[in-house]
Every structure is written in C-alpha cells, then in structure tokens.
C-alpha cells in the first residue's frame, strides 16, 4: 500500500493510472453507457460529421462511432489481457522450472524459449487463426505463447538472484519443499518485476490485437473493435479524414499509459530491484595515481564518476578555494609540531542530503614521513573522511564544515577489492599504460618502459607476461601490487590505503603490508591507512585514530593506544584480540603447559 501511495505522488503515474481506470470502467460498462446500439445501421446518415446525436459522427454504415468505440473497448482490451495472462502464467512457470527444475527439464525449457523468440507474432497468430478457425481466443493464446519467452527471461533473472541467495540455501538445508520456497521467498520478490513486465506486455499486446483485428483476424464484422474500426475508417479516408482519429487515439493513449505506469513502477524503491541497500559510507570508489597541481592548501575536486570510460584508476587533486571553514586551533597532538604536518583535517563535518550527520567534527593530522592509521567499523565515518580528502564523496553526501589542508602535491591511493578497478576486457598492460600516459604525459613507448620498471619494483617478475594478462587471470594480491605500483608511480607525498588488504588471504595480506612498508621507506611516503582490523594497523602505523559513529574516540601513538586504551570502545577492540586472538591462545597454551609441568614434572608435548 505504501508502494501505491509513493506511486501516486508522481504526477505522470497518477495520470496514467487514472487513464487506465477509465479504460477499465469502459471495458466493464462501455456497452451500457454507449448512447446508441453499436450495430444499428442507418443508411440515411452515413459518414456524418460530429453532431449532437453522434458526438464522433457515423461510419460508412451510419453506425455511431462513439458507441462502437465504447463497446469495442471490451473486446480489444480483454483480448490483449488474455494474451498477457497466457504469457504471464506460461512464462513464470517456465522461468521457475528453468531455475528450480531438474537439469534435463531446464535444458528443454531453455531451447524451447530460444526457438519461440525467433517466431514473428502476427504471422504466427494469423497462421494459428487459419489452423484453429478464425477465433480471437485461439489467436490470443498463440500471441501469449509467443510472448511468454519475454517473461521467461525477465522473471528468470529475478528468480535466479533470489534462488542463489543464502536464505534460500538455508531453507533447502531444512528440506523445505521447492514449492514452499517459491511461495514464501521467491514470488513476493518478483511481483514488482511481474507488474512491470505485464504492463509493458499489455501495451504491446494491445497493438497486436489492433493489428490482428485491423487485418480481420479473430473477429468477424460487425463486432466492433478498435483495430476493426480503424480498418473500416481507412477505406473512407478520402471522405472522412478525421474518423480514424478516435480509435487510433484510444489505442495510443492506453498504450502510452501502460508504458508510463510500467516505468514508474520500475522506479519505485519498493520494487526492490536492488533492495539490498548498502550504507553510503562504504561504497568504495576509485582512485590511484595523482594529479599535478600545487597549492598551499589543496581542496580535492573533479572526481571521476563511476561511468567514466577511462580504463585506468585515477583521481586528480587540484587546487581550489579553501572554504571559510570553522577551523579552530590545530589539535595539539602528542607528536611533532603542526609545521611538520603533511595533512591537517580540522573540524571536518560530513552530512547526508537528508541532513543526517555522518562525520561530526573530525580533527586529524598526518605528519611528514609518518604512517597514521584510522581504525573504525563500517559506518564509523572513516571511509567518508578519506573520500572527502580525495574529493570523491558519493552523491548525496557533502562536506558541511571544517577544512582539509594538504601541504603536498600528490596523493596516491589503493582500495579494497582491487580487481574491480580494472576493466575485464582489456589487458592489464594497456590499462596501466593508459594511466601512465594520461597522468604523467608519457609517450606510448615511455609508458611501456615505465610500466615494466614499476611492476618489477613491486615484486612482480616477468612484467611482460602480466601485462598481457586480463584481470581475472591474476590473484587479488598481484592486482593490489599493480595498483600500488600505479599509486606510487606519480611519486606521491601521501599514500592512502583504505582497507587495502581486507579482501586478501592472511599470507597475501602480510606480503602486501610488507610491500607498503618497503615502498614507504623507498619513496619517503607518508601513509594514511584505514582498516577495521586493529592488528593490521598496529603493525603498520605509528599513530592511531579510532573512529566511532562519526567522531574520533581515541587518538595517540600506537603502542600507547594498545597498552593503555582510554575509551571503552578501544578497550573492547583491544580485548577482542587479547581474548580471542592468537596471543590469547599462545598465552593460554603457555599457562597450561606450565601448569602441567608443575603438576607432573613432565613437559607436555
């Protein structure tokens, strides 16, 4: 019901729905409200123009056009609906079978669907009409059968997504029968898809009915239909050029209303076509190499949108006007002096369009040559803070106050899920070259040479073989190495690593963290590392900031935070490691061994 209410707030949807309600009423009561008998001929008054008695005039047999239009609606619309109903039932059943059925049946369904796609509607319907006698029902069933593959394809896609979900797998593990799984988990989810497809199919079907009746298939004169009227009127076009307008309009308006309604239903958030909403905070977007503009205070800007066709990951950092920010006193950290700072973030506030605060006044410093870690859970604001620094905030989220001062020239960055930063259909080498040529103005030959250097530099032997490969052929660790190579290629001052090792196996994570440490030393980099994993940061960073709910709850040198956490939340995170981590097991094992030794005097194996 809320879906209907949302739908009605859109004017176009409301108008379309109103039109369809009127059409439905005419289908039900058209014959009753028709002013004349639609079949009554009046040879004295043929092809008359509009008058008080005949609002739309009369046709070549002197029949009232308005009455024929009103009473012809039922057959035209119901025949179209009949075809859609057949297509809907057949298509949905076939789609469900194609997903949940046994393998041989799935194969058969797919082949049948493919071959039906190849048959032309109207020709097939005419042939069926010829075969089964000139019945509108036979013709519409034929049309419905031919339209079913459209439903199969759309519905199967929707069903597949649900069928592969873990809650369906969980239900299967309980032995819940397939029919019940379909009824409880699957069907409620595909209702919006069915509605949208049915509305579009009904529009198409109306046109098919109009065409068939225009050709005289299925309906014998004198029964009125929209298509039949159009056909008759066209024969007298020279005498009455405006007569075909009424049936044509009826067809057009109904079809248009259905099309608009289908579109608006599809737009509904409740349609759940992407129901599993993610928090805006954690939508990862791309950046790696860097731009080339210098300024004392740097605002990031000009983020590349996700639709950007550029194959390579890149992000420009350009100078811009510093907003008159609520920059208070620089937070006096326990380390270094403010003049050493490469990056200073003061009182940064980020809000959603709805006004909901996401980051609520964050002060953060990255001194030169230092590695700083930001620790936080999803939704803590850590990723948004970094995105604000990179000028890559997602749509609907904006900086509401505070300032970001970057006293360097370039920022390089790497992110989670490295494989998503490469196009799957281009070789890695061509994409790396593209970035190098674009970001550093190298020629094709220079870029290839630099690419070889860079890949070797990050420990990838045989760079030429890797360059010729596609992203799916490499492991996540290798791809992250390539992205690190690109990130440092522009000799950045700051390397941002946002959950850069989160998706990797621990052994690979250790290698990538080792590489970051090495690059940091060799390139004199400052590092800003973001993670939900305390242990990852503990190993790589000298300073830690702990984010929670958009504020910093703890900040300080790493060993101090680990040894004497002040905030209860930090204490909990540290405890998580000391209670459940490997240290806990080692300690417990050591204690157990000692105890056993003390008791028996024998060392336990």
């Amino acid at each position, binding site marked *: 019901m809320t879906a209907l209410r949302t739908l009605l707030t859109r004017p176009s949807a409301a108008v379309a729905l109103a039109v369809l309600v009127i059409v439905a009423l005419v289908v039900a009561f058209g014959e009753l409200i028709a002013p004349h008998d639609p079949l009554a001929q009046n040879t004295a008054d043929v092809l008359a123009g509009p008058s008080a008695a005949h609002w739309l005039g009369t046709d070549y047999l002197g029949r009232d056009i308005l009455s024929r239009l009103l009473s012809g609606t039922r057959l035209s619309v119901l025949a179209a609906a009949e075809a859609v109903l057949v297509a809907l039932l057949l298509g949905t059943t076939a789609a469900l079978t194609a997903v949940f059925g046994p393998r041989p049946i799935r194969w058969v369904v797919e082949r049948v669907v493919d071959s039906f796609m190849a048959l032309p509607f109207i020709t097939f319907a005419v042939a069926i009409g010829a075969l089964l006698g000139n019945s509108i029902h036979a013709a519409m069933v034929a049309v419905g059968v031919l339209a079913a593959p459209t439903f199969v394809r759309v519905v199967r896609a929707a069903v597949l997504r649900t069928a592969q979900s873990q809650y369906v797998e969980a239900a299967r593990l309980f032995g819940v029968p397939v029919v019940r799984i379909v009824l409880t988990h699957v069907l409620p989810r595909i209702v919006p898809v069915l509605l949208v497809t049915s509305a579009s199919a009904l529009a198409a079907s109306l046109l098919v009915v109009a065409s068939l009746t225009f050709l005289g298939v299925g309906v014998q004169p004198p029964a009125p239909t929209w298509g039949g009227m159009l056909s008759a009127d066209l024969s007298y076009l020279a005498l009455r050029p405006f007569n075909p307008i009424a049936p044509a309009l009826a067809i057009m308006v109904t079809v248009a209303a259905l099309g608009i309604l289908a579109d608006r239903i599809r737009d509904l958030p409740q349609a759940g076509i992407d129901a599993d909403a993610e928090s805006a905070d954690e939508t990862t977007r791309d950046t790696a190499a860097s731009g080339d503009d210098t300024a004392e205070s740097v605002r990031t800007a000009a983020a590349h949108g996700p639709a950007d066709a550029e194959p390579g990951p890149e992000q420009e950092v350009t100078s811009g006007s510093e907003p008159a920010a609520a920059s208070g006193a620089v937070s006096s950290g326990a380390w270094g002096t403010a003049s050493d700072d490469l990056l200073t973030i003061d009182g940064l506030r980020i809000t959603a369009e709805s006004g909901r605060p996401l980051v609520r006044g964050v002060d953060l410093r990255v001194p030169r040559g230092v590695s700083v870690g930001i620790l936080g859970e999803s939704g803590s604001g850590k990723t948004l803070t970094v995105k604000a620094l990179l000028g890559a905030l997602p749509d609907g989220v904006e900086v509401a106050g505070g300032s970001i001062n970057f006293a360097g020239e370039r920022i390089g960055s790497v992110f989670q899920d490295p494989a998503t930063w490469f196009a799957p259909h281009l070789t890695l080498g061509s994409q790396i070259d593209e970035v190098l040529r674009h970001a550093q103005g190298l020629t094709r030959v220079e870029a290839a040479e630099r690419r070889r250097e860079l890949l070797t530099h990050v420990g990838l032997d045989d760079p030429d073989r890797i360059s010729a490969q596609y992203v799916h052929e490499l492991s996540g660790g290798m791809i992250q190495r390539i992205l690190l190579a690109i990130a440092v290629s522009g000799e950045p001052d700051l390397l941002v690593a946002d959950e850069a090792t989160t998706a990797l196996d621990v052994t690979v*994570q250790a290698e990538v*963290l080792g590489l970051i440490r090495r690059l940091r030393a060799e390139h004199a980099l400052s590092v800003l590392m973001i993670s939900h994993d305390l242990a990852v940061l503990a190993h790589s960073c000298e300073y830690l900031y702990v984010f929670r709910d958009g504020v910093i709850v703890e900040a300080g040198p790493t060993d101090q935070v680990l040894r004497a956490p002040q905030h209860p939340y930090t204490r909990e995170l540290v405890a998580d490691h000391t209670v459940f981590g490997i240290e806990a097991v080692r300690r417990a094992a050591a204690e157990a061994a000692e105890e056993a030794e003390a008791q028996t005097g024998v060392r336990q194996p």
Partner: protein
Amino acid sequence: MTQTLIERTGAESAVSTEDRDSSAPAADALRVQGLSVRYGARTVLHDVDLHVGPGEVVGLIGESGSGKTSLARTVLGLVPAAAGSVEVAGQRVDRFGPPQWRRFRRAGHAQQVFQDPLSSLDGRFTALRSVLVGTREVVRGAEATRRAEDALRRVGLAERLWNRRPAQLSGGQRQRVAIARAIAVDPALLVCDEPVSALDASSRIEVVRALADVARSGTGLLVISHDLSSLGAIADRVLVLHNGHIVEDGTAAQVLTAPQHPYTQTLIAAIPTIAA
C-alpha cells in the same frame, strides 16, 4: 573401515567403534574418511579425514582455493563426493539419493550458519519468522513456535527484537538469529562458514559466545575460516587445509603455538597481531 549405518532417532545414540574416546556416548556429529571431491577434471579435495565429536568445536582453516568451502558443501550434500565416506550423525550421507536427503534434512541433522547474516536471512522476514522456516519442517503449529522462541532465547536475543527485520538489527544480533534458526531444529552438526568475519569486532564476541553455548549443548561444530586467530578462542581442535590436503591436525594450542607443517608456519607468521 567399519561403517556404522545406524539411524540416529531422537535421544537414541549410536556408538561408533572407531578410534575415538571410548567414553563418547553418541555418534560423531561428523566423520569424513578418505574424501575426495572433483569438479570435472580438477580435484579440489584429496583424501581428507576429519571427525567432529558431539559438543566438539573443530576449526578448519584454509585460504581461498584451499577446498574448505567444497568440504562444507559436500558434508551438507550440496556437492557430491568423488571418493570416500561422509557420515553425519551416524548416517552415511554420501550414499544418499534425493529422497533420503529430503528425509535427512527435514529431520534437521545438519545445519549451516553462513558468513553474512544480511544475505542469509530473508530481508522481508522478522527474526522469529526466519527461525520458524526451519522448525516448521520438523514440528508443526505451536510446538514450532515454542522451539523457535526457545532457540532465540538460547542465543540471548531479547524478546523485543523478535519482531524486527534484519535491517533493524545489529550485525551480531542478525548472526545470532541465523544461529537460532540453525539450532532450533536441534542439529547434530552445525557447519559455520566464516561465522564472524563479516562482523565488526564488537559483534564478534557475542557471536562467538553464542556458538560456544551451542557446542556445550552437545552439537558438534565445524567452523570454517580463513582467519586462524578468530578460531583460537572456540576451537577444541584445528585442521589446516592447503590445496585440498589436510596438512595439520591438532589442538588449537598445538597448531597455533607449535605448527608442524611449513605452510601452517607461514600462515601463522602472517597473522597480524597487536603484540609488539
């Protein structure tokens, strides 16, 4: 190889004559012997042996591609075994055809807890209704509801949260609903696939405690993870799976403190710790 083909019905227990503790009263929750699994020409599991006793928590560690997920899916009958035997709650499930699987599943012998409760729970269902999905296959009507409520209480989910949907629960609460759904049918074996790795650190503790409680009640747990350190706290034994082979098998303390196989040594050395 002795094959105990005794149906486990209700409280009745079957004693395996294998080399287990002779004091063990019930059949092993899981006993896998010489298991190999192939996808086409590719062998993903080679001659794997493992057993999970009643109330025992066995951790299975492996990185991506190690075969750990294939092992779990084979145990649950979602992937066929190419060789070897799989016994769950005393039944040779590797010989099951579809009708036996259906009966076996509807008895609720083996259940799974998935990594991400946001995708393993139907977003349209309340916590209580999600748990009912399972209990309704085993018992009907009020008894199903009673069991579902009982399971939610066992995982410590407050009653006011029972009518909430997954989106209105925290990560830890959601995962406890998923655990409740699994234990409501009183399974002999609970396979947990990365049960805490999608959760924030603060949720992890509550889920680990809930799982430890489940084990105490007699259910055998096979906990699969790529993260050794998260298993240390609950696993009685830890097995390390590498390229489809079990390369290490010992108590959690043995494996974590004195790993024998070079791969396990690499793996443990790679675990980031907060120790200086």
